[in-house]
């Protein structure tokens, strides 16, 4: 039994040696509950600001003000073998656009959370 455990530990140590995992993020997490609290034709510009803070970007689109919030998440995995190294860095973003009409009331909310499916990968081939 002890021999098997030792063997398993040794195998794990061999497999995990030379592995590296890194992560980087840019911007604050866009809270889902804050996004859900924004109601079309009801929520005001001031309420959006109190829920989400100042936008990362303020745009003028189609005669409307658009608040853009974003967050980037990067995950890198490396398999550092002695003669060959494999690395893969995947970057995805979460974006939120709040479209306000001329009266400062929310007209539309567009959001997507791409970072939910982001995984650590080290195999660079394939998709």
């Amino acid at each position, binding site marked *: 039994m002890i021999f098997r455990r030792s063997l398993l530990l040794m195998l794990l140590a061999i497999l995990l040696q030379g592995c590296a995992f890194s992560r980087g993020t840019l911007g604050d997490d866009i809270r889902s509950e804050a996004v859900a609290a924004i109601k079309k034709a009801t929520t005001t510009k001031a309420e959006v600001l109190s829920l989400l803070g100042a936008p990362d970007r303020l745009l003028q689109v*189609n005669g409307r003000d658009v608040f853009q919030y974003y967050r980037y998440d990067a995950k890198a995995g490396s398999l550092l073998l002695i003669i*060959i*190294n494999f690395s893969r860095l995947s*970057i*995805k973003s979460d*974006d939120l*656009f709040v479209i306000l009409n001329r009266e400062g009331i929310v007209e539309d909310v*567009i959001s997507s959370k791409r970072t939910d499916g982001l995984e650590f990968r080290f195999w*660079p081939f394939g998709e």
Partner: protein
Amino acid sequence: MKLPLSGLCPLLLSTVMCVTFVGCNVVRITLNTPLTQDDVAFIVPGQTTLADVITMLGTPDSITDSHTGVVATYRFLDMKYSRVNFGWLLRPWSPVDPDLIISRTGFGADAFELLCDSDWVVTHRSFLRHVSGPRFNPYPF
């Protein structure tokens, strides 16, 4: 002593493999999910709205204004880098760490742009630079 041919083959093969892969680095960087023509085939100019596109592809990376409407842009990148350091071959016999490196980087940078009218209906759609996907190839010449 003479090695039999059956014993020589695996030795030769492993030597060739080691020489080929010695000091190799294979790196890939992806930004967002690369879009293809098939992914955007559902967009019919004059019919599809930006909301329909967002339902299928998610939020664009940027929305900008133009004289004729709104431009929504989806950006993505698929970068492949490979590198071989032949200097590794000499490391066991050299007092210094010699480097003889060849490497190549391929950027498959692209963006997909949509032009929408004032009612958010897509009027035009196009890839910014539809480059073919890069390959892992360290040979730079």
